[in-house]
């Protein structure tokens, strides 16, 4: 009898255990609501902050150097995954995009509206391995905002995205956009007026980032691959001399303040130095508007009659 009793208890306990459903856990609550707006470079961050009711919600990661060559960590991308929308410069600016997992449906490509006007770089290094055909890493020029009319179109795309997707948007968005576009148009007009003094002026750029700038303002720019804070090697000076034989420029445009040593040597070659900061990353002081105004001011001696 005692044994039968034990068996009955064992059966009851087993039934109880089985009835506890351990396998099919119900899905947890949906992901936390996305509130931050990701922007991939400073010009977009500046536009977004001017358009948004809550500028604090604009997320531009702290990036050391050019945001186009950002190498995000998994933690950075986990933060980006929580943002909505993801405002990108486009035109292949975000080199990191191919190696990360982000919600692609939330992406807003601000330069796609003028995709037919993107400039393609050619003659970059091509390589081949195995029996497959050669391939290169040539690409699209991505400093689209240096044509201020394109920057205005990017601001328009950004405003559309904020209006459609983000609850941060305030009712004042149309006015904010109008003011921003007005400022950008002002910069564009000022540059056009300045560069009209010397159409097709030949210039040398320290870096190949001024293609849209040259096209928009009717300039003839050839670039070397120099860094403002690094004194060029002799081979680089030789390359510059070679360029100058067919492209007699009198000014070099720098992305940032060059070394005095470089300025002096350029001066001896008959080249003046002027800074036109593309302002791709958060500046130490000022903002996009003031930096661009300073850039125009810097260019005045170049186009002086």
């Amino acid at each position, binding site marked *: 009898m005692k044994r039968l009793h034990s068996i009955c208890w064992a059966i009851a306990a087993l039934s109880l255990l089985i009835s506890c459903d351990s396998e099919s*856990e119900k899905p947890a609550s949906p992901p936390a609501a996305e509130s931050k707006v990701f922007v991939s470079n400073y010009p977009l961050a500046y536009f977004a902050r001017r358009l948004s009711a809550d500028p604090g919600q604009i997320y531009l990661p702290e990036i050391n150097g050019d945001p186009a060559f950002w190498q995000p960590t998994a933690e950075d991308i986990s933060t980006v995954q929580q943002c909505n929308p993801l405002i990108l410069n486009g035109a292949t600016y975000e080199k990191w995009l191919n190696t990360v997992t982000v919600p692609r449906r939330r992406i807003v490509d601000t330069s796609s509206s003028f995709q037919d006007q993107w400039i393609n770089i050619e003659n970059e290094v*091509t*390589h081949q391995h195995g029996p497959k055909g050669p391939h290169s890493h040539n690409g699209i020029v991505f400093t689209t905002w240096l044509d201020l009319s394109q920057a205005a179109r990017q601001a328009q795309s950004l405003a559309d995205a904020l209006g459609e997707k983000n609850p941060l948007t305030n009712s004042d968005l149309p006015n904010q956009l109008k003011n921003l576009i007005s400022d950008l148009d002002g910069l564009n007009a000022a540059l056009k007026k300045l560069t009209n003094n010397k159409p097709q002026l030949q210039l040398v750029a320290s870096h190949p980032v001024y293609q849209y700038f040259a096209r928009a303002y009717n300039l003839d720019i050839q670039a070397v691959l120099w860094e403002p804070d690094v004194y060029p090697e002799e081979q680089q000076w030789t390359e510059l001399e070679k360029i100058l034989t067919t492209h007699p420029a009198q000014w070099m445009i720098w992305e940032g303040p060059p070394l005095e040593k470089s300025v002096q040597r350029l001066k001896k070659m008959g080249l003046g130095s002027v800074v036109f900061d593309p302002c791709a990353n958060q500046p130490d002081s000022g903002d996009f508007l003031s930096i661009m105004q300073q850039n125009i001011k810097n260019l005045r001696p170049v186009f002086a009659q």
Partner: protein
Amino acid sequence: MIKAIGNSFFIAGRYLLYHKGRSLILIIALAIILFVPVFLNIIVSQSRKQLSSRADDTPLILGAPGSSLDLAMSNLYFVAKQPASITYQDAIDIEQSGLATAIPLHTGFRVGDFRIVGTTLDYFEHRQLNIKDGRLMAMLGEAVVGASAARRLNCSAGDSLVSTPENFIDIAGQYPLKMKVTGVLAATGTADDEAVFVDLRTSWVIAGLGHGHQDLSKNKDPSITLKSDDKNTVTANAKLITYIEITAKNLASFHFHGDDSGFPISSAILVPKDEKSKALLLGRYQNPSQSQTRQLIRPPLIMQELIDAIFRIKTVLDVVVIVVAISTALTILLVFILSLRLRARELTTIFRLGCGRLTTAGFVIAELFLIAAASLILAALLITLTNHWGHTLLIQMLQER
């Protein structure tokens, strides 16, 4: 009276325990008769529930022409028979049409027995999949593992998994890719528990469409270079080191050859914006020019056809079960009658000891009752187990091994 019944059950219990083997066989035989019809009903109803619920959550599937059932099963359950590929451009076109959200799936590779599903983060939102441990994949080469797959692969966040080469003989084929597990999904009781999820681009890396290797422009070993021309074209030989694991150090060297819009996907889940968009999409892919290169299927309809087929089979099985049950019941009855004959001397002794015929019959009825009760308990246990594990069993049956 109660005491007499109690005594009958005591005698019957002692008798059954004395003849353990025979009693056990009778109990099991009777339990099977009771269990099998219920088991069939449970499995069929769970199949219907399982097949229809997942299909109902998948309004449309876009894929290559061919068997619509294969396409549905491949997309919904990641079964091994892979449909022909379509291109990523097909998914982009749907997105750009604004009619639906397209969720691409690339299910061409495995880790052991488990499918690698290359997809986008939209898949996790659509299927309401949540991370139980760790985080979603963020970088190329990272993987998130389904609950059941994690348990059977014995892996958790921080571990690594290696993709299984499709062909061991093809030494020039794709390299296996070592993937970092970043998270394990909460169990859902669906095919997602049995999969390893990666970013779509990671599946393209496994397919050999993207890779990372040492920088040729910095190469100082002349034996790697086959030729180098004036057009900055460098041709390397097989000595060039191609990475089989994506790490923070070599991540930047990974690149894809060609336009990703032309890269393959197995199929795409389409989630139309509304009924009108759904009708427009269906109309678009019924167009003869489109239907020759792509097919758009409605999984609920495909699955309903499969369920109908299962029900037709079940009807046949029901008849078989009834015939077997009657035959088994008759056999048990025969065994019982024969055992009574064998027990004739024992029953006569009981009678001579002073027990009436009614009391003797009471012993036999109590034996029958105890056997029936034990069979019922055993059948109930088996039914509970089936209820509990049936869906897991089904999912495993659906996954091709």
